[in-house]
Structure formats: structure tokens, C-alpha cells
């Protein structure tokens, strides 16, 4: 049983995951702080804000759901909105599946739950190559690495969010501290831009997301991903599958 093994956080790969993630924790923290402030200012009670921070753990779907909750929208509309905002995670889960399937269901669900955008991006940049399904020590090392990424993100998100809720009236929203979160994402994006096709992917996705911005429920993000992946697959050299696979962007 897993429980008899050394805990994940003692695995050396856990520390590597923490080190990979630490440089962007400041951006996550600023973003979490502003999300906490924004939730209180939108009119949720402090208990509701705290509950949301601790259990929902998804900034963009929280920020999309809060105005709907305050406006008294039907529950199914709120949940459907959050699901659409989260559609990108469904794509990510297809990518992460080979790293998860050796675990029991509840651990797979826990692993998915804690894996945010940044953890997914950092993990797949650090480990671009798949692991054989029977190579359990390596799979265990990957688990530890992802857990290290997620631990940093969880702390860097939840603690500042709670601070933001507590100090909502002391931090003016108009300072725009949340932009630090965008800058963190920008840094990661640039660190992933390790091949010509990936640069093209970023350009196409950004342009498509702007062009499709009028779509509801942040579906422009899905349009951006789909357009970029389609264009890059068409631009790959035909007849040489994998020839243009980029090397890892490496960690920040």
C-alpha cells in the first residue's frame, strides 16, 4: 500500500517541484490577494469567501461565479459557467492521464483537484516525455514532483487570498496588484517559447482569444487553444511525425 511507503513530501523530486515553482509564487500570491479582496467587495459574506477560497481553489472560475451568485442567478447557470471557464483543465487532464492512472481513483481525483494551470505548465515543461506504465519508481517520482508544484501553489494562493479577505477594505482594488498574476503567467509563457512552433502557438492563441473575446463564459480561451493547436499540427513537417517536437522549455 501507498500508505506504507515514504510520504510524497520526503521524495527528492518533491523538493525539485517546490524549487521550480517558488520563483512564481509572488505572482500567484498577488493574484490570490486581489481575488480575496474582489470577492469581499462583490458582496459575499466573509464565511462564503473563506469557504470558496479553501474548497473551490480556481481563481478564474471563482471570479466568474461571484457576480452570478450575488446577482441571484440559478445554480445550474453558475455551475455551467464555472465548468466552461474550467474547460482548459479537461484538455490538461488528457495530457496528465499517463502520470495518474497507476493510482487509485481518489488519489487521481485529488491529484487533478490540486493541479492548477501553473502546476500543469511547470510539470509538463519539466517532464515532457511520457513514462512507461510499469515504471512505478519513475511514476512515483513524477507524483512527488507534481505534488511539490501544487504545494507551493496552494500555499501561495490560499494564504494571500485569506489575507485579502481579512484586509479587503485596506487594499484598494484600483492599485491593480492583480496584474502581478498576469506578469507571472507572462514569464511562464516566455519560458515555454522554446521552439518556433511554440511561438506560433502563442501568437495564434493570443490573437484568436482577442478576436473571439465576445464569446460568453471565457470560451475565447478554448477557441484560442484549439486554433493554435490546429495551426501548429498543420505546420509540422509532414512525414516526419515528432521531428519538430520541441525540446523542453525547462523550468523557470
Amino acid at each position, binding site marked *: 500500500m501507498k500508505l506504507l511507503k515514504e510520504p510524497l513530501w520526503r521524495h527528492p523530486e518533491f523538493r525539485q517541484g517546490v524549487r521550480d515553482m517558488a520563483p512564481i509564487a509572488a505572482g500567484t500570491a498577488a493574484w490570490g490577494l486581489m481575488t480575496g479582496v474582489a470577492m469581499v467587495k462583490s458582496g459575499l459574506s466573509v464565511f462564503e469567501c473563506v469557504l470558496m477560497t479553501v474548497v473551490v481553489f480556481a481563481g478564474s472560475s471563482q471570479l466568474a461565479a461571484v457576480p452570478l451568485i450575488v446577482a441571484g442567478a440559478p445554480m445550474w447557470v453558475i455551475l455551467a459557467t464555472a465548468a466552461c471557464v474550467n474547460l482548459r483543465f479537461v484538455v490538461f487532464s488528457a495530457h496528465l492521464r499517463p502520470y495518474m492512472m497507476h493510482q487509485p481513483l481518489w488519489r487521481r481525483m485529488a491529484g487533478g483537484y490540486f493541479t492548477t494551470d501553473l502546476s500543469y505548465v511547470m510539470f509538463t*515543461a519539466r517532464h515532457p516525455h511520457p513514462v512507461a506504465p510499469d515504471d512505478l519508481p519513475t511514476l512515483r517520482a513524477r507524483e512527488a514532483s507534481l505534488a511539490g508544484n501544487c504545494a507551493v501553489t496552494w500555499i501561495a494562493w490560499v494564504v494571500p487570498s485569506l489575507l485579502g479577505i481579512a484586509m479587503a477594505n485596506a487594499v484598494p482594488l484600483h492599485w491593480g496588484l492583480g496584474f502581478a498574476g498576469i506578469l507571472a503567467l*507572462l514569464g511562464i509563457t516566455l519560458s515555454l517559447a522554446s521552439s518556433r512552433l511554440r511561438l506560433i502557438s502563442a501568437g495564434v492563441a493570443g490573437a484568436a482569444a482577442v478576436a473571439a473575446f465576445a464569446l460568453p463564459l471565457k470560451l475565447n480561451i478554448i477557441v484560442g487553444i484549439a486554433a493554435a493547436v490546429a495551426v501548429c499540427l498543420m505546420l509540422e513537417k509532414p512525414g516526419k511525425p515528432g521531428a519538430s517536437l520541441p525540446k523542453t522549455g525547462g523550468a523557470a
Partner: protein
Amino acid sequence: MMQTDAWTVVTILGLAVVTVITRSFFFLSSKPWTLPAWAQRGLHYAPIAALAAVIVPEIVMTQGALISTWKDARVFAALAGAAWFFWRRSVLGTIVAGMAVYLPLHVGLHW
């Protein structure tokens, strides 16, 4: 201070379920299954595409329209952050350099 109501609490718990299901969508079934090869190759371009699709509108759009002025703190902050990244390859430096440009322009000059 706002009142907590049960309906909102149930909605929040529902949102947590949405987080779990979307993030572990393709792990839920343990039937043997692999992605087709083209989709596996496509996934090499998905992470950067997702990030670009999130951040580009946040930098160049205001209230659903492309910005029409160069007096926007976000553009200068993003350029400063990117310049720092290409100089030092540091994500933390990107955040710090970007905010060092953003805060004076945004809070000071209201750009």
C-alpha cells in the same frame, strides 16, 4: 456585513465539485485508453496556447475592446517584464520589473 445563506454555501460546494471533475476529467475512468498520436503531438502546443489565450486579452483589451491608446500601464509593464525575461531568464524578475513599471504608471498617472 453580508449574511451567509445556505443556497450560496451549496453553490460554493458545487463549484468545488466542478473543479474536481474538470481537472480530473480524463482520469475518472480507468478503462485502458490512449490519445491518438496527432492529439499527443498537439498537446505539446496546448500549454503555451492556453497561457497566451489567458494573458493577451488581459494586456491589450479593456471592457471587451482592443485598447485604442498607448497610455496603458499594462502594455509597458508587459514589455518591461518581457525585456527582463530575455535579459535574465527569471520569472520572478519578470514580475518585479513589470510591477515596477506598472504601479507608477497605473496608480501615479492613472494609465
